[in-house]
C-alpha cells in the first residue's frame, strides 16, 4: 500500500535518482561541517563542568599551557573582555500583565559559576585535536559546590536554590492566552470535566551529524568566516552577530553546504562557536572544533520538556465547552534563542486543537533548572499541545464510556466554519476535519477493531487502537518575507538562491520541481543554492524550520519562475525587435508572435543578465492537519509494545513531491515513536549528572521499530500562496505522540489503566500492568 505515489526519477550523469542531492550524498561527496578544513587550522577542545551547579573559585591553566602543541587557553575572563555575554533571544511578545522576559546572560565561556553538567568552562586551542584534549585534563578548576535543582516543579517552589541571582523564583517568564474567567465559569457549569496531567518528556533531537565548526578571521576585512550546521544562514549570521557583542552582521560570513539533520537543534548559534571567534582573531588561524556525541547529549539544546495539565469541560451532549491548559516549561539553565517562543506561542496558536471550544485559557510558566537548555525540536510546542489535547479527549471518552472516534466527531470544527477564529485569537485558515477523519477511520477499519483485538488476545497479546487528529500553524517566521533570487545562464540552466537551508528535506529537488513546472524546463537543469556567502546576505528569508520552507521559499520559487519569464520576455522582445506583449514563452524558448523569430533562454542569458528576485509574505500562517490511527500489541510478559499498523491521513495542501512528503511523514512518525517508547533525557535528580549521555543509554529508534506505514492524503488547498501548499515537516511528530500513547493505554484498559507517562518502555509498561493486577 505504502509508497503508492512515488514521484518519477531524475537522471543525472547517467544515474537515476529520487532527488538531485542524492548523487553526492550516496557517493561520499557531501560536505558537512566537519568536512571543512584549512591546512593551517588549530583545534579547539572544551573543558566542561563535571557538576551541575557550582561557583568557580579558580582556574589554573599553567600545566595545560605547557603541554606540547597547546597554543592558548581561554576562559570566562576572555568572554568578559570580548563582551560575548548574551546570546540572541527571539522572545518578542509580552507575558502575563505585560511582563518582559528576564533573559539571563550566557557568557560564551562560564564566568564565576557553572549551571549544568557540560557548561563550557575553558577552551584549549592546540595543534591537534588530541593535544587539545590531553591539555583539557591538565586544567585545574577549584569549584565550590552549590545545591542543584533538576526538577522544574521543584525549581519553581519558594525557597529553591537560585540558578541566576537576578531571576527570582527561577522563573524568567510567565504568559497567558485566552480568557481565564470564561473558562473557570464554563468548567463550573460543565456536565462533565476531565482533567489529565501529562509529561511531554525532555528528549534530544540527535541529528546524526554532531555539531562542528571551522571559524576563520580575516584581518584585512575584519570578517569571520564560519562553517557550521545551520538551518538558514541569515538566522545564523544574526545570532552570531548578536552574541558577539552586537557586531555588525556584515562581519559574519556563513558558508554552509550539507547539514546532517537539524530538527530545530541546529537553529541556535551555540556559545562554543562564539568562543572560537575569540581564538580565531587572537591567533590568526582557523579554529576547528567537532563535538563528540557525549557533548551533543550534554550541550545541544534539548526538546519538549513540558508538564501539561489539561482540563476539559463538556456539556450533557459531550460537546466541549471549555479547555484550560496549565503548562510548565523547563528551559534548562539559560533561555535558548528559540525555546520560550516555541513552547508558548506555538501551543497558544492551537490551544483548542481540532475542536470547536468556545472558551480557552492557557497559562505558561517558564522554569529554569540546572540542566542543558531546551529549544525548538521538530514541532516546537505543537506536538506537546496536540499530545495533551488528544490524551485528554481519549480520557474523556473513556470516562463517558464513549467511542473516542464518536467524541471527536461531535466536536471537530465543521468544515464550513473555516476560516475559524479560535478563542485565543488565531485564525485557522482551512481544513475539512470530518472528511479527513472519516477517511482515516474507514481506511483503518476502525469499526472492525474488536475482531482483531480478540485474535491478538488468542496469541496472548493485548491489542490497542489509538487515534490522534491534530492541526498546527506554519508559514510565519522571524523574517517578514521570503525571497528567492533566480538567474539563467548561457547553457539555459537556472540557479535559485535561497536561505531556507535543507537539513535533509530535499529542497534541491522540491524547489527545482516547482521552478521546472513553472518554466517547463527539466528539473535536472535547475540548481538550488543555499548557504552561499556571496548571495545569501542579499536575500531576505526564513530558515528551514516550523514546516515552513515549502510554504514560504518553495512558493516563492514558483513566483520567481513566473517573474523570470516576464522579465525575460521583455529582454527577448528587445532582441527579437517586437513588443514584449508579442513574445510568448514555452519550454525555454521565447517566440515572437506571428513570426519564426525566437530565442532560447540560454541564448538570451549569454547576451543579457537574466535574473530576478521574487518575494512572498506568509506570516498569516496556514494550518496543516491530519489524523493518525495506529494499532499496537503489548506483550504482558515483557511489556514490549509492537506497532502492528500505522496509518496517516494528512492535509498538507498541495503536494509537490509525494516521495519527499512520505519520507517526511515516515521520519517524523518514527521520531514521535522514539519519544513514546524509549527516548528520554534523564538527569540524576540529586547530582544533576546526565544518565543518558550516549547512544548506549539513550534509546534511539532502530530499523524495524516501525515495520510498515500507510501514508495517505486528504488535502484542502491553502490560499496563503498561489500553490495551496501547507507544509508537512512536523506533522508526523505532532500526531504520533497522541496516537501511539492512546493505542497503548487502550490496550491496557482491561487492567483499568487510564494513563502512563512517556516513555512507555517495556519495563514501565510491565510494571504498570503488574501494579494494576495486584490492585484488583
Amino acid at each position, binding site marked *: 500500500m505504502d509508497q503508492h505515489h512515488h514521484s518519477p526519477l531524475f537522471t543525472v550523469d547517467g544515474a537515476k535518482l529520487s532527488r538531485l542531492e542524492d548523487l553526492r550524498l550516496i557517493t561520499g561527496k557531501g560536505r558537512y561541517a566537519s568536512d571543512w578544513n584549512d591546512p593551517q587550522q588549530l583545534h579547539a577542545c572544551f573543558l566542561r563542568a563535571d557538576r551541575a551547579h557550582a561557583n568557580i573559585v579558580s582556574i589554573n591553566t599553567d600545566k595545560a599551557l605547557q603541554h606540547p602543541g597547546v597554543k592558548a587557553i581561554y576562559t570566562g575572563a576572555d568572554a568578559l573582555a570580548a563582551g560575548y555575554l548574551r546570546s540572541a533571544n527571539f522572545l518578542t511578545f509580552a507575558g502575563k500583565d505585560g511582563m518582559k522576559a528576564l533573559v539571563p546572560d550566557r557568557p560564551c565561556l562560564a564566568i564565576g559559576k557553572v549551571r549544568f553538567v557540560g557548561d563550557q568552562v575553558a577552551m584549549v586551542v592546540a595543534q591537534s585535536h588530541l593535544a587539545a584534549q590531553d591539555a583539557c585534563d591538565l586544567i585545574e578548576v577549584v569549584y565550590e559546590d552549590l545545591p542543584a535543582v533538576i526538577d522544574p516543579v521543584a525549581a519553581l517552589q519558594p525557597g529553591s536554590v537560585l540558578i541566576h541571582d537576578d531571576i527570582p523564583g527561577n522563573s524568567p517568564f510567565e504568559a497567558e492566552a485566552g480568557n481565564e474567567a470564561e473558562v473557570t465559569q464554563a468548567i463550573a457549569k460543565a456536565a462533565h470535566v476531565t482533567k489529565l496531567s501529562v509529561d511531554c518528556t525532555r528528549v534530544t533531537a540527535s541529528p546524526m551529524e*554532531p555539531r562542528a565548526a571551522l571559524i576563520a578571521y580575516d584581518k584585512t576585512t575584519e570578517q569571520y568566516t564560519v562553517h557550521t550546521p545551520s538551518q538558514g544562514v541569515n538566522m545564523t549570521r544574526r545570532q552570531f552577530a548578536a552574541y558577539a557583542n552586537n557586531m555588525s552582521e556584515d562581519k559574519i560570513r556563513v558558508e554552509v553546504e550539507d547539514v546532517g539533520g537539524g530538527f530545530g537543534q541546529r537553529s541556535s548559534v551555540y556559545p562554543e562557536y562564539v568562543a572560537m571567534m575569540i581564538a580565531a582573531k587572537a591567533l590568526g588561524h582557523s579554529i576547528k572544533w567537532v563535538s563528540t556525541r557525549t557533548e551533543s547529549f550534554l550541550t545541544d539544546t534539548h526538546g519538549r520538556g513540558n508538564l501539561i495539565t489539561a482540563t476539559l469541560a463538556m456539556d450533557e451532549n459531550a460537546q466541549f465547552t471549555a479547555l484550560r491548559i496549565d503548562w510548565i516549561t523547563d528551559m534548562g539553565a539559560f533561555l535558548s534563542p528559540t525555546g520560550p517562543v516555541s513552547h508558548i506561542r506555538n501551543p497558544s496558536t492551537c490551544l483548542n486543537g481540532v475542536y470547536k471550544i468556545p472558551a480557552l485559557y492557557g497559562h505558561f510558566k517558564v522554569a529554569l533548572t540546572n540542566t542543558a537548555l531546551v529549544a525548538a525540536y521538530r514541532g516546537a510546542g505543537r506536538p506537546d499541545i496536540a499530545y495533551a489535547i488528544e490524551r485528554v479527549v481519549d480520557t474523556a471518552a473513556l470516562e463517558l464510556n464513549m467511542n473516542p472516534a464518536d467524541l471527536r466527531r461531535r466536536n471537530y470544527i465543521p468544515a464550513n466554519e473555516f476560516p475559524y477564529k479560535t478563542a485565543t485569537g488565531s485564525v485557522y485558515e482551512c481544513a475539512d476535519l470530518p472528511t479527513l477523519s472519516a477517511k482515516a477511520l474507514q481506511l483503518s477499519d476502525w469499526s472492525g477493531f474488536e475482531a482483531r483485538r480478540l485474535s491478538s488476545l488468542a496469541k496472548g497479546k493485548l491489542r490497542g487502537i489509538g487515534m490522534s487528529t491534530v492541526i498546527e500553524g506554519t508559514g510565519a517566521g522571524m523574517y517578514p518575507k521570503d525571497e528567492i533570487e533566480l538567474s539563467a545562464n548561457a547553457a539555459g540552466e537556472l540557479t535559485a538562491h535561497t536561505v531556507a537551508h535543507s537539513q535533509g528535506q530535499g529542497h534541491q529537488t522540491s524547489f527545482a520541481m516547482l521552478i521546472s513546472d513553472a518554466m517547463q524546463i527539466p528539473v535536472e537543469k535547475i540548481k538550488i543554492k543555499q548557504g552561499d556567502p556571496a548571495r545569501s546576505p542579499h536575500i531576505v528569508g526564513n530558515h528551514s524550520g516550523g514546516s515552513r520552507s515549502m510554504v514560504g521559499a518553495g512558493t516563492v520559487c514558483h513566483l520567481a519562475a513566473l517573474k523570470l519569464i516576464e522579465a525575460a520576455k521583455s529582454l527577448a522582445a528587445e532582441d527579437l525587435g517586437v513588443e514584449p506583449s508579442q513574445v510568448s514563452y514555452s519550454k525555454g524558448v521565447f517566440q515572437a508572435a506571428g513570426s519564426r523569430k525566437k530565442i532560447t533562454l540560454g541564448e538570451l542569458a549569454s547576451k543579457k543578465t537574466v535574473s530576478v528576485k521574487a518575494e512572498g509574505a506568509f506570516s498569516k500562517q496556514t494550518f496543516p492537519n491530519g489524523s493518525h490511527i495506529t494499532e499496537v500489541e503489548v506483550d504482558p510478559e515483557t511489556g514490549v509494545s509492537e506497532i502492528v499498523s500505522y496509518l496517516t491521513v494528512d492535509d498538507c495542501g498541495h503536494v509537490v513531491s509525494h516521495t519527499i512528503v512520505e519520507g517526511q511523514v515516515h521520519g517524523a512518525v518514527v521520531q514521535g515513536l522514539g519519544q513514546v517508547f524509549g527516548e528520554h533525557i534523564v538527569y540524576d535528580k540529586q547530582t544533576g549528572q546526565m544518565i543518558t549521555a550516549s547512544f548506549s543509554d539513550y534509546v534511539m529508534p532502530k530499523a524495524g521499530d*516501525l515495520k510498515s506505514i500507510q501514508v495517505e492524503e486528504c488535502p484542502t488547498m491553502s490560499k496563503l500562496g498561489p500553490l495551496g501548499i501547507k507544509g508537512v515537516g512536523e506533522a508526523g511528530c505532532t500526531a504520533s505522540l497522541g496516537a501511539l500513547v492512546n493505542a497503548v493505554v487502550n490496550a491496557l484498559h482491561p487492567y483499568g489503566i487510564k494513563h502512563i507517562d512517556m516513555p512507555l518502555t517495556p519495563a514501565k509498561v510491565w510494571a504498570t500492568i503488574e501494579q494494576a493486577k495486584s490492585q484488583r
Partner: protein
Amino acid sequence: MAKVELTINGKNHCFEVEDRTLLVNLIRDHAQLTGTHVGCDTSQCGACTVHMNGEAIKSCTVFALQANGAQITTIEGLAKNGKLHPVQQAFTQCHALQCGFCTPGMIMSVAGLLKNNPKPTDEQIYHGLEGNLCRCTGYVNIVKAVKKSAELLATQKQSR
C-alpha cells in the same frame, strides 16, 4: 608515532600516525576521504562503517595500526568505473536517505549484509541494520532499499 601501510579503494597509502589514531581519523584526516562520517563515540551509530578486507566494520573502533596491510573500501570506492553500486542505486531510488549523514555507513553495512545473505527476510534486515542509526527516514525506506538492492544484485549476477 608509527607507520601504517594499507590500501584504500585500491590505492596504496603509507602514513605516519600517532599510535592512538583511529582508522576513521586516518581515513578522514590523512587520506582526506570525508565520505566516512563520525556520529558517536560509543560505536553505536555506524556512520563510520567501511569494509576492511571485505567485511563491514566500524572504523571508529579500530586503530589505524590494526589496519596495517589491510584492504579498505570506503563509500568513495564503492562505485566502479563511474557506475553506482546496486546498493547506492537502491538507496536513492527508494528515497532511503534524507540528510545523507548516516548514508555512507548505512550503504557500506547493507553491502556487507547482502554479501553474506543475498536474500534476507524482513527480520534479517532489521537484525542486519542494528549497527546503524538513522534519524531522518524512520528506516521504512531503508528497509525497502535493502530489498531493492538484493533484487538489483541478483539481476547483476544473472546478467554476468
